[in-house]
């Protein structure tokens, strides 16, 4: 269980989040949506332990502030928005950076499986820096996956916190990554991700948090939140929600843009 109580974050002197109260159960995919600058990424960075905050964030009853870095790493993996790499590592070496324990044999096994999961089998010997942006993003996801490979460990759910995991991916690999996340959630793990694409959020999320001006404007199932009136208010533009016939998934289109 991820519990956030009265979370306030200021970056420099600018308050960015003004008191967020929400909790999330594992086994579900949560999409954090909201317009640019609303505080989505800051919320994700706060639960990842990257920015100082006031209030309380707890994972399974453990206050985040009291957990050591390696204890945190055993419970959650984090995929930042933009990843950098300083030296010419190969793909296999980058993925291995996510591993903290295990014998050489099962590491090799895990790295190969994680690469297969993101459709990069055969890329392990390539230099990371020579890959395309979308391929690099998938390598980084594989690195995060090997860190928390099993969705549940010793009875405790593990978490994936992801900032725009599919922003640079083509449509097929977007779906591929969403399948990976769905499998992780179905296995009992928790997924919290910032998503820009409202239709993708509507399609894959079990739960949506709508952030606006540093506050939680709405939270609930996508059909209600994305189909509801809060969305137009948050984004400041008229939005038309529809139901897509076969799966009855909600999809949205901006309208009235051209007068």
């Amino acid at each position: 269980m991820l519990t956030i109580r009265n979370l306030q974050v200021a970056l420099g002197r600018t308050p960015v989040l003004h008191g967020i109260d929400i909790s999330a159960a594992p086994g579900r995919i949560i999409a954090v949506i909201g317009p640019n600058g609303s505080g989505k990424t800051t919320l994700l960075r706060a639960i990842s332990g990257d920015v100082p905050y006031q209030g309380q964030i707890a994972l399974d009853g453990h206050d985040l502030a009291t957990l050591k870095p390696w204890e945190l790493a055993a419970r959650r993996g984090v995929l930042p928005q933009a990843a950098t790499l300083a030296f010419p590592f190969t793909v296999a070496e980058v993925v291995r950076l996510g591993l903290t324990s295990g014998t050489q044999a099962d590491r090799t096994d895990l790295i190969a499986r994680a690469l297969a999961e993101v459709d990069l089998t055969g890329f392990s010997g390539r230099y990371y820096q020579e890959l395309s942006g979308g391929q690099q993003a998938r390598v980084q996801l594989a690195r995060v996956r090997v860190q928390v490979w099993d969705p549940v460990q010793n009875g405790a759910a593990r978490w994936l916190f992801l900032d725009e995991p599919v922003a640079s991916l083509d449509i097929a690999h977007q779906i591929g990554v969403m399948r990976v996340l769905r499998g992780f959630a179905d296995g009992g793990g928790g997924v919290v991700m910032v998503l820009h694409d409202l239709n993708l959020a509507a399609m894959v999320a079990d739960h949506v948090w709508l952030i606006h001006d540093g506050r939680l404007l709405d939270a609930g199932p996508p059909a209600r939140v994305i189909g509801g009136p809060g969305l137009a208010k948050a984004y400041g533009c008229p939005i038309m929600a529809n139901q897509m016939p076969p799966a009855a998934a909600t999809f949205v289109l901006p309208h009235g843009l051209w007068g």
Partner: protein
Amino acid sequence: MVAIDFTAVLPGDRTPRARRVAIGLGVLLLVTCLLSLSHGASGVHLGDLVMALWAGDTLPDRDRLILWEIRLPRMLTGVLVGASLAVGGAVMQGLFRNPLADPGLVGVGAGAGLGAVLAIVLGSMAPAWVVATLGWQMVPVAAFVGGWLSTIVLYRVSTRAGRTSTATMLLAGIALGALAGAATGILVYVADDRQLRDLTFWGLGSLGGASWPKIVAAGPVMMLALVAAPFLARGLNGLSLGEAAAHHIGLPVQRVKHVAILTVAAATGAAVAVSGGIGFIGIVVPHLLRLATGPDHRYLLVNAALLGAILLLLADLIARSIIAPAELPIGIVTAVIGAPVFLWILLRRRGLVDM
């Protein structure tokens, strides 16, 4: 059905190659050490000495003196200094996430030098208890403090939100180096004759002054840095993803950074205190090894220590045989070989200019 052998090495995993290189370098270091022991202006050959010992003869006093008081300390100093310079460079590059961060280039060597000169010139003015506690260690310890302070300043200036700017780092390094150089110059002015002789000898960058007392003074500091470095390997690997991601994969980032800065300062400071400024080992050795076996610090640091020791011993052999019986300062040899390699690195990696 085909059984999958999961113990097989994944393509792109350069661990086995790095291990083979480590073994090769170890053997090569032994050979180089023997070469260093058996060559010298005096014409005493190690082989003859071994044969004499084997035959049960006692060594002539002169030969024993040359071997024990001149060549052995010189070889040990070469090994320690070469390993320290290379490891100091590799650790600093890992800390700054930048292959151009060499202690000698970015002012840390100059800061350590200033510390050493301060101790030589003003050491006698230090409080009695300091002199009594440090004794022989005063020069290496002062060099360590100088290197430590300059590394901290450099990191503070050039790193924002966990990212290091190459341009800022190099420019700040130039400023730091100039400042330390100026302060060193002033100290040279106020030094007396005996101190000046110490300074000149020290500033040449040479293993010629190697002696047992110096090894006893600076050796432990270098050993400490060399022993600490492998423990930094996982931390530096993680830092190559940036500070935030290093924290995400479970590393105590602040602690890694502090230990890395102390290690750089100890390695560079003690090496500078013993042998003056010897350039380019710290940048060329890690770069060659990254090309050969990749940037994984678990192997890079160990191999850098071995290759650094080998290259410095070879440079020393060249320095003392090329114009024998006179000696070239070893810094000249490493610069003649190292500077072109450094330029070659810059040419190959034009992308660095944009960082």
